[in-house]
């Protein structure tokens, strides 16, 4: 399956990945509405990636799509599963109860708490089987690539 590869040496910290991830997961798919309305509404809209920066080094971190995912082993609700079509590890948010077991075991720390009315674990879904995830497609200098690995 294809995975997102991080090239931290090319990342300039522009955070466009974060912006486009958020827009991609918004209802409106509109940058202004996503930021000004949806993000503020308490609906839990947030980027599915984590941006890390320290001094000159920065990178965007998404779920690593592990071969043997610890989150899948640890999930008590059955929400965390491997999508049969895309092979991506997906959290079925309608089943998740927010017990945070996945957060406790993910070695990359790539899963976040989403505090909506219904607490859920929020993670990268590779943009639901899109040809190219939004973060990769919008990275201006190929610090993120989408490759068969």
């Amino acid at each position, binding site marked *: 399956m294809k995975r997102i*590869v*991080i090239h*931290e040496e090319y990342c300039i910290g522009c955070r466009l990945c974060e912006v486009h991830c958020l827009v991609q997961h918004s209802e409106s798919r509109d940058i202004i509405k996503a930021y000004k309305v949806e993000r503020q509404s308490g609906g839990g809209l947030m980027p599915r990636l*984590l941006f*890390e*920066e*320290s001094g000159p*080094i920065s*990178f965007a*971190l998404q779920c*690593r799509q*592990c071969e043997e995912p*610890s989150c899948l*082993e*640890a999930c*008590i*609700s*059955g929400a965390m599963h491997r999508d049969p079509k895309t092979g991506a590890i997906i959290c079925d948010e309608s*089943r998740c*109860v927010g*017990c*945070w*077991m*996945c*957060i*406790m*075991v*993910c*070695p*990359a*720390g790539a*899963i*976040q*708490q989403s505090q909506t009315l219904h607490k859920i674990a929020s993670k990268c879904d590779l943009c639901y089987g899109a040809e190219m995830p939004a973060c990769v497609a919008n990275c201006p200098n190929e610090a993120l690539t989408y490759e068969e690995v």
Partner: protein
Amino acid sequence: MKIIIIGNSATAVGAVESIRLYDQSAEILVITKESSLIYSRPMLSHYLAGQIDQTRVAYRDPDFYCRFDVQVITDDAVTEIDLAARTVTAESGMTQSYDKLLISTGGVPIVPPMPGVDAEGVYTFTELSDADGILDRVQREKPVQNAVVVGGGMIGIKAVDALQQRGVSVTMLELAPRILSAAFDQTASDMVSDILRRSGVTVLTNDTVAKIHTVDGAIGEVTLRSGETIPCDLLVFGIGVRPNSVLAKSAGLEVNRGVVVDSFMRSSDPYVYAAGDVAEAYDLVVDMNRTVAIWPNAYRQGAIAGAHMVGVERPDEGGIAMNTIEADGVAAMAIGDANMEDSGQADLQFLSELDERAHRYRRLVIRDGRLVGAILVGDVNRAGIYTGLIRSKVPVNDCCKTLLSPHFGLLSLPEHYRKHVVTGEGIEI
């Protein structure tokens, strides 16, 4: 090839999903004493709390057995294993032969012997039928007034928090001087205790139930070891579980506390495996085999056993004791070996940061330069990075200062380890 799995929880699912990754033709038979099909035990507290309905307690979709071509026999307990004949016999009299057998009989809830323990209104809290029974009492016309939960560990807290969310007045009893003493240090215990007390729970330590008083067969009062008698119309034993290893023992398998297994979950008989709460598997933090009754270990060990049964070697690197709880909306986690007090041990280093007003606490324990335990209260974000450090045993001497920084992340870690986590295979540590 015929595989029999005794028990129908996380371990069984782990085994089935793993077997089918490699083998489509093996016949798989699951035998369970329970009536319900696969459900998640850790979800029971969420169900009891009213956060989810019973359909969501299901751990897999209803088509699970069909999709993975698994035959299931419910309501029948295996009573005997004949290692020489390679057969199992159940309560109903049914005898089935196997080529490979997986014992995943889980744990038995601990109930201290005392007068009145069989009274109506006394429960343990590990099975769906327990949750349904408790729920029935909580929701009946004359609902529960005073619930008592025995056990201030993880199961006890989950029961307390769920009952509290149902609006039931709860008293929690813990025999040790503090709650959560098996996993948490004093500070974290005190924080969770305070949160529970402020939310209305009566937390009593150094105490337990000594006697149950009944009225017409139902529980009415309990006398505590300290001498006091308090009203109680619902009693839940949430002390913990011991391995359900009777079956394995009587079959003649090597059993200590749990069934002794190797890194492929093989028991002392080459055709019989054991995994989950019943197994005594390798714990990589304490560097020895022991029973650790937690969901992730059960699933993973089941998957390892399943693979090996169909000829695929995926040796277990070992488990770690870990758990997460929530008290009145505040999350708390304990990972690895983190509860010991700082008494100047030469090989141990303790790092901690406490913000009492924000209910935020983190504590890390480093042994010989490697992380062995973490406790998090309040903010649990990125906790898994600590778990990864514990599992990989990478030296953390050089990054000690950043491990508790507010911006803690992968960039706080040594470059080589960070690249290993980010890139995975290819960059070994």
